[in-house]
């Protein structure tokens, strides 16, 4: 089974990469863009058969490794 996770910078945490992307988009005439936040996307293949078990396990992974909860939020899709 494949579990998908996205990790994004928390609101209020400076995201200099997102800011640079936003400015570049604005310079490319995408003038409607007010903000970009850059995150990470993971696809995790697990041997677990039960979706709830697998998601619970991935949540543990997020807390222990995949996200730094001081600056990032995670979302299991």
């Amino acid at each position, binding site marked *: 089974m494949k579990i998908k996770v996205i990790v994004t910078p928390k609101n209020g945490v*400076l995201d*200099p990469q997102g800011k640079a992307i936003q400015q570049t988009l604005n310079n490319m005439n995408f003038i409607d863009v007010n903000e970009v936040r850059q995150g*990470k996307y993971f696809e995790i293949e697990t041997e677990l058969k039960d979706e709830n078990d697998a998601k619970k396990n991935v949540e543990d992974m997020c807390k222990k490794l*995949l996200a730094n909860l*001081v*600056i990032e939020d995670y979302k299991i899709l």
Partner: protein
Amino acid sequence: MKSSVIIFPGSNCDRDMDVALKKFGFKNKMVWHNDNIIPKSDLVVLPGGFSYGDYLRCGSIAAKSNIINSVIEFANKGGLVIGICNGFQILIETGLVTGALLRNKYLKFICKNIFVKANKSQNKYFNKIKKDILELHIAHNDGNYFCSEDDLKIMEDNDQIAVRYCDINGEISVNSNPNGSIKNIAGVFNIKKNILGMMPHPERVIDNYLSSNDGSYFFENLLSNMK
């Protein structure tokens, strides 16, 4: 005094640190990250570099390596632990010190000498250093210190801010902040002040031939407190 420098795949300041520690009289051993036990030590150093290629987040993979449990145990017993640059990022990822280190505000790798003001109160790292302003070296891409307002208040109340970026006259301002760190923070202590994490490299400035000699004060002071 005995010290251990931990080597991770991608560490690149481990030998500089070894040279510096030996120069000031430490008996230093190099310890591989895959080992489980630290040799008997009075000081453990996590050196600078790019452990595991900075994959995922700087320091995050190294923070789960075999040797780290021994480092945490050593630190929790009150042992002196220093993390410099990537070593600071690893300390952050282990949770031994508070906060996070984000990408530099202006997205540039910064490699230059900077000035810092050190906290001299009740810690073994800076307490008796005669100079108020130290010229040290920084070389990093992710040194932009961040923590929540609540954590910042706790750390300020406990006097845990170890080092702050300043200018040559000691003024701490936006202009002397190279990377966007909140409150110009360049390094922090844990609550007991036996653990120091900081971005500047004292081991790179231990001789006037190396553009500054101010790192020498750091090592001399630390050693004098350990005797």
